[in-house]
């Protein structure tokens, strides 16, 4: 697909966008405000489009694309002079006022996780990708993704104050 897009296939680039835009969005959302994330996704694909001829190996595309996304998100925060922990950006119209407070709380907890865990968990919980899809779209080994998901989820539960007993109770109930 990457080779086809680079060679001028008129639909291949759109297909790359379909396949990777959620991964790009998740990586950006791990660092930048939600309100800016959609525009930053477009920026990332515009940059990728311009630089695609410089990509030597097509199989490196996922990691290369997400590296552009991380750099773009970091640059964006730098320009805005906002530390990510100060970002409070989930609009209430997204899911209602009460829910938006909870969404913001979870998003803040996700962003406070170590890098590898926060990206992987945002891709799983926000973007709805499965572990195998995350592996394919990030270029990570499936085993690494599985570990990141489980360890990250454990840390997230701790940050959100969810005890193992609560989880067990919900399963029984």
């Amino acid at each position, binding site marked *: 697909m990457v080779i086809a*897009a*680079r060679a*001028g*296939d*008129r*639909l*291949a*680039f*759109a*297909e790359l*966008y379909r396949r990777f*835009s*959620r991964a*790009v*969005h*998740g990586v950006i*959302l791990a660092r930048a405000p*939600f309100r800016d*994330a*959609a525009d930053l*996704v*477009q920026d990332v*694909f*515009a940059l990728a*489009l*311009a630089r*695609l*001829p410089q990509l030597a190996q097509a199989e490196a595309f996922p990691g290369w694309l997400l590296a552009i996304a991380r750099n773009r998100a970091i640059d964006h925060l730098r320009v805005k002079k906002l530390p990510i922990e100060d970002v409070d950006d*989930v609009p209430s119209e*997204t*899911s209602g006022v009460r*829910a938006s407070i*909870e*969404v913001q709380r*979870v*998003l803040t907890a996700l962003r406070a996780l170590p890098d590898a865990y926060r990206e992987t968990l945002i891709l*799983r*919980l*926000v*973007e*709805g990708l*499965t*572990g*195998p899809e995350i592996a394919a779209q990030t270029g990570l080994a499936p085993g690494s993704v*599985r*570990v990141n*998901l*489980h*360890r990250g*989820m*454990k840390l997230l*539960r701790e940050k959100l104050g*969810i005890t193992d007993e*609560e*989880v067990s109770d*919900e*399963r029984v109930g």
Partner: protein
Amino acid sequence: MNESDEPNDYLWDGSGSPDPEIQRLEQLMRPLRHDAPLKLVPPKRRRPRWIVGGAVAVAAAAAIAIVWLARPDKPCSGGEGMVFTGTGELSCGDGRVASGVLPIGSTIDTGTHEADLQIATIGVAHLGPDTRVRLDATSRAGHNLFLERGSMHARVTAPPRLFAITTPSTAVTDLGCEYEIHVDARGAGEIRVLSGKVELAADAHGVIVVAPAGTHATIRPGRHPSIPIANGASDALAAAVAAYDRGEATAIAAVIAAATESDAITIANLAVLEPANLAVQRRLGEIAPNRAWSAAAVAPVATDALGAWREDVVAAQIAIDALIDH
């Protein structure tokens, strides 16, 4: 939680017994999920000299305007309008000048010469020989030219819909791009889009097609604009599109049969023009899959979704055209 390869692993791939807390988090966070279509602005083409040159040209044009404003006794020398510079003497209003300001409502005729017409600060229109253009409006709200006949190469860097060209049969609305257009004295001609996209409309017919970079469309007097086809499309597709434009009954089937994966833009526009035709949508689904379409569909896609589908195809066409070394 188990990190091993257990088969029952909801967190890993959604299999097995659902974890209620993970399900709650998925549901809670789902509204933040990315679902926007590709909306790339026309990528910066490798023409920095034009951008720099454009700024210089605008400054030079402003200087010319000041000079001509100071000479009100010359034709096309002052008032509101567009600054132009010709390669020789041109007809402007009732007089002949090599450069000046084209007033609103006046017509410029290049005769045997060529001219550059500055579209305020947003771009430039290069007029070929034997070209007649009338300035209908120029203000912050928009800039409108009427191309009576001849050829024009327009380059515009501005938000969509600020610049429009009307021909005797078609209105061309700039959506941020570069294109070449020519029409003859009867109003027949062609438009070729070099970057970005344009919208083609004929008021009397209510037909709107979108032509992105790397495509061209026919302009026909007294008829709606043709469906755009990709540069390099087969002769069979061009003939089928021409037959469709003439209203021939079997033309839709011929367009579908002739369209390849490189012709998605033609089928996408045809789908918008023929919203009830399931066969057209089926072909579009084959060559440009979209979330709006299912191969099992038994009813046509909604009109709004068709428009969005076409926009996806347009965006892909623009994006990939930028990769092609023209």
